[in-house]
Each structure stands twice: as structure tokens, then as C-alpha cells.
């Protein structure tokens, strides 16, 4: 997994636009596609989003990867809708899916994770009086990343053990040992956190 997530570094206007504004624009666009029911206008929206990919100078390789995911979902929905309802409605649904998913992908590609976390910390600041501490958000996310690394290793070990026992196809033989070790890992982590003063009063 790329530690930067899906972010595609760049300095285009879309990259520099504030996270809050981009998120707002995305939500407006997504709800807009539900209001529009004309294939022509939805086509215009799709074209505008495609233009966004050009403005953001997303490399073709990333565009292709994004397009493939979006098109597979859109094609599946299109075919099912065509079969169930008819061609017109299927076209509208297909374009709607392409527009919203492509726009959301563009948001993700042009926005750094730490910028989003920083925005969340600022937005969560008013919740301070209700006992939410924005700093804790960062801590939770960091701990989760570490846990992902640890659990991936554990899962690999369990998978190997499973193979050695010739039980590759058994979901239970994989999940039970994995979960038992997951719970144990959580308890160790909890003790480590407590030992470092978390939850003290």
C-alpha cells in the first residue's frame, strides 16, 4: 500500500484549492446529478469532471486506473437497469454513476490525507466542549495504521500455518486463529497504552 494513499502529487489549481471548498463542490455536484435527469446535461457534467482530470494533470496511467474502476461499476448498473427498466433510465443512471464516482476520485487524487486530517481537526474543534479532543483523532488514525501493519503480518503467518495444515480452503481455519491473535494484540496494545498513561485521571 502506498503510504500516501491515493494522492497524486501536483500543484494545479485543484490541488491548491482548500479541502473544505473541494468537499463542498463535490457534495453539490453529487446532489446535482440526482436533480438532473436529462442525459445531455449529465453528459455535460461528466465532460466537466473529465476536464478536471486534465486541469489537475493526473497522469494517464492513474486516469486509466480510475476510469476502469468507474466504468466497470457503471457498465454493470447500466446493463442491469437496461434489462429491468429501459434504455433511457439506464443511460441516466450510468452517467450519474460516472459523474459522481469520477468527481469523488478526482477529489481523492488531488487532496493530501494530512490536509484532510487537519481540516477534520479544525472542524472538530467546536466539539471540544462535548469531550471530543481533535488531537485524539490523529492518535487513533496513527495507531490504526500501525495495527494494519501488525495484523497483515499476523494474517500472513496464519495463512502459512493454514497451508501447512492443508486447510487452505477453510475460512474458519483462517479467521479463528487470526481473530484470536487480533484480540490478543489489542489487549497488549491496550496495556501498552495504559502503561504510557492513557486513561489516567
Amino acid at each position: 500500500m502506498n503510504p500516501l494513499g491515493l494522492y497524486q502529487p501536483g500543484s494545479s489549481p485543484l490541488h491548491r484549492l482548500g479541502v473544505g471548498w473541494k468537499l463542498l463542490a463535490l457534495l453539490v455536484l453529487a446532489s446535482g446529478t440526482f436533480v438532473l435527469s436529462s442525459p445531455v446535461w449529465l453528459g455535460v457534467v461528466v465532460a466537466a469532471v473529465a476536464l478536471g482530470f486534465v486541469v489537475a494533470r493526473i497522469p494517464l496511467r492513474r486516469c486509466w486506473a480510475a476510469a476502469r474502476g468507474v466504468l466497470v461499476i457503471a457498465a454493470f448498473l447500466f446493463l442491469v437497469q437496461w434489462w429491468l427498466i429501459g434504455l433511457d433510465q439506464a443511460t441516466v443512471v450510468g452517467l450519474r454513476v460516472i459523474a459522481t464516482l469520477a468527481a469523488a476520485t478526482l477529489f481523492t487524487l488531488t487532496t493530501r490525507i494530512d490536509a484532510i486530517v487537519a481540516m477534520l481537526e479544525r472542524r472538530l474543534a467546536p466539539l471540544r466542549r462535548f469531550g471530543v479532543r481533535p488531537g485524539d483523532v490523529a492518535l487513533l488514525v496513527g495507531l490504526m495504521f500501525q495495527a494494519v501493519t501488525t495484523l497483515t503480518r499476523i494474517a500472513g503467518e496464519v495463512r502459512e500455518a493454514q497451508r501447512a495444515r492443508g486447510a487452505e480452503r477453510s475460512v474458519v481455519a483462517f479467521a479463528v486463529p487470526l481473530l484470536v491473535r487480533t484480540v490478543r494484540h489489542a489487549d497488549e496494545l491496550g496495556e501498552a497504552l495504559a502503561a504510557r498513561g492513557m486513561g489516567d485521571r
Partner: protein
Amino acid sequence: MPEPRATLPAADVARTVVFAAFIAVLGVFPGVYVGGSGVPIVLQNAGPLLAGSILGARRATASVVLFLAVTAVGLPLLSGGRGGIGPFLGPSGGFLIGWILSAFVVGIIASRGLLTLPRMLVANLAGLAADYLIGIPFLGIYNGNMGAALVQSAVFVPGDLAKVVAAAVIASLVHRALPGTLAAPTSRPSTKPGDPGA
């Protein structure tokens, strides 16, 4: 510390965080092929069920929320390497949001009594229903046709039922291996009970 109520109990935090990571790892692992069908069973949507069965409602809901938040922020942790806001706005976004209610419902039912297999089955079945309760109307609004949404979702029912049974069996085995996991109080400073350490 001046604000005592704001401190996070370490054991709760650890379980929440680790299970959020567990759901992520389920997505990283390739699907399991069952029988001769070419369709892999994706493990990830069993994650909220398992979290609810093993952690109870509060911690499971928190871990699903954490996982979904981190995903929405842009980490490709959903199965197939998907991430960002996209999956939530897509046609099946309601099923993702439904995971939250799902984990909550499973946790509520699972923690109400003995951790037997029948109870786990009921809890996980109710959790699946809770996910559908949000996911299918969402898909219906997306398509503009509720009937079509129902038909489309019906395709996934057999696989989902298999996951419900698997999750129930797995959860009851885990509880047998680690008794007291669900009942574990938030204030368990170490292996020794009794002394709260105040």
C-alpha cells in the same frame, strides 16, 4: 489532568483501533474461492459482523466508524484497493454506511446473554438485515426505482447468508477460545482483576 471525562480508556481504544485495522486487513486479503464458482467471496463485509460479535455494540460501532472515516479520507482500504469519498457516493454506498448500524445491532444482540451459536446466528442475521435496511433504499434512490434495487441486491443474498453463518460460527469459536472477551470491562488495567489502580 483538568478534564477527566475526556480521557480515553486504553483498553477500549486499543480494541476499537485494532478492529478497525482488522476490517482493513480483510480488504487487503484476496477473496476466498468457494467450491467451483468463479466468484470470490469478499471477506471485508463480514468485518462489521465479526466486530459486533466479538467487541459488543459500543466498541464495534466505534471501530467501523473509524475504519469508514479513514477510508473516506482517501486510504485505499476497501476491498479491491478502493478508497476516498467515491465508494460512499456510489450506488452501493448505502451498504457501507449500513455497516455502522450493522455492527451496532450485532453487538447489542450478541452481548445480551450467553454467547452460544444460535444467539450469534440471530445477532449476525439481524446485523445483515440492518445493513440492507440502509443499503437497499440508498440504491433505490440512486436508481430511481426501488423494485430494481431489490432485484439487484437479491444477487448478493446467498453469499451474504453464507457470511452470516461463517461469522456466527467463527465468533462463537473465538469466544470459546477467549472467554470473557465481550464482557471484558473497560477498566481492566492488567491481567489481575480487583485493583483498579486508583
